[in-house]
């Protein structure tokens, strides 16, 4: 595998491989010196056209723990402000010889385009409403770590499905591994093509709450409030928020997950976020190990990249 653009590039077997490899990198991260020389001499470029805290930091930490060099790039301090096109920026970055380019962009498909413009491996770190594969991978890893496996789990994803790249990648990953996924959202926040997805759909969180292993809350994207898809945030919380009262009806072992950043008190009540079955910080921690696994698979361990008969 040369690029990670979509969860579909991996399939169930690939997701399993990433998770098994992430186990090893979790151990590396717990060493007194949490660093291995595996990607010494490799360079990873960060091409983030959209704001990000955890994904960008996570990729940087992952690359550094593998001894790779990191080329930072922030749009606000670059020639993008002078009107440089994505294609020219990619050409410029590529000319400096990175082995991998991590791309985030507000438009779907930019990572695919980038892959066509460079010799480096391209990793999709979120493109528009399309996909966010490493988020889905770290969520699979978190569920596997807490519950033993993803297969057979009943996972409820609640919130703004329509505008969520996390939801798209998670639906693909969870169902590929054999989970039963139910989407819960106001009808205005479901994508039109949802009928073709291998999921159940419900408009009521209360109806599905007592019978699931994972509740996965999505961020309410306040910037989309102007589209009048929701009456108000209070209305949203009343119908679809994971309040203290709703959380009390969950199975005691059920996980409360969220990709962050979380609007405390909107999607999930602050008290619920502090309960031991809320995995938000674990998800972030696992994100580093999972991204180390992805970088290692793409840059070091891919048999397709090896010249014939090399090594002993």
């Amino acid at each position: 595998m040369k690029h990670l653009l979509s969860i579909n590039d991996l399939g169930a077997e690939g997701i399993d491989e990433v998770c098994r490899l992430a186990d090893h990198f979790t151990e590396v991260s717990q060493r007194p010196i949490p660093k291995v020389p595996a990607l010494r001499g490799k360079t990873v470029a960060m091409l983030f056209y959209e704001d990000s805290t955890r994904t960008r930091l996570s990729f940087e930490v992952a690359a550094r723990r593998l001894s790779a060099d990191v080329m930072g790039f922030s749009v606000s301090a670059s020639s993008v402000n002078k009107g440089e096109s994505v294609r020219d920026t990619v050409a410029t970055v590529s000319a400096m010889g990175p082995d991998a380019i991590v791309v985030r962009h507000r438009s779907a498909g930019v990572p695919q385009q980038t892959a066509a413009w460079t010799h480096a491996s391209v990793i999709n770190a979120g493109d528009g409403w399309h996909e966010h594969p490493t988020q889905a991978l770290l969520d699979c890893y978190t569920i596997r770590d807490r519950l033993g496996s993803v297969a057979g789990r009943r996972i409820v994803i609640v919130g703004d499905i329509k505008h969520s790249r996390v939801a798209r990648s998670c639906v693909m990953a969870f169902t590929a591994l054999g989970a039963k996924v139910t989407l819960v959202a106001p009808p205005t926040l479901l994508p039109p093509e949802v009928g073709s997805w291998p999921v159940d759909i419900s408009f009521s969180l209360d109806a599905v709450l007592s019978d699931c292993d994972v509740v996965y809350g999505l961020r309410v994207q306040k910037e989309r409030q102007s589209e009048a898809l929701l009456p108000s945030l209070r209305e949203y919380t009343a119908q679809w928020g994971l309040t203290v009262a709703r959380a009390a009806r969950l199975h005691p072992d059920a996980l409360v997950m969220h990709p962050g950043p979380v609007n405390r008190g909107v999607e999930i009540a602050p008290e619920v976020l502090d309960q031991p079955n809320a995995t938000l910080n674990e998800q972030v921690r696992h994100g580093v190990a999972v991204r180390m696994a992805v970088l290692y698979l793409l840059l070091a361990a891919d048999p397709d990249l090896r010249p014939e008969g090399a090594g002993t």
Partner: protein
Amino acid sequence: MEAEDIKRATWRMAHEIIERNHGLEGVVLVGLQTGGVWLAADIASALNAIEGVEPPLGTLDVAFHRDDIGLRPLLPEAPTKIPFNLDGQAVVIVDDVLYTGRTIRAALDALNSYGRPRTVQLAVMVDRGHRELPIRPDFVGKNLPTRRDEMVDAHRDGIDLGEIVK
């Protein structure tokens, strides 16, 4: 070598480890994944039978520290578990077969991440020669001259010699 010979060699190496370190104070064993793990466990129980002390026992997979990453797909095969600090300890690296020495170089590199041992020693069941690095074993079960195109496999029941099928 038969199973009985392997057992005798294991016990002799255990005695040598005690002799070299004047007891087992500060001695820890680290078996390399995957071939060295059974031998490390057997040496540990022999040490326990002789001295009445079971030394701390860890396992190490050196995949991320190898010098041939990028030349072939290298995925770790089994977990690394070193749940103790190595600062000031006498670490005995245990592996089944010593060949080029590159695995041991990677292991030495990996051990640095866990602290600064007082000394590092190397115990192997078979030394088959053909070193490519300045590395030598401290405790050897059997010296076995081989050709490069032979394959050597050491386990509890004995040592197998085979041809590499190309």
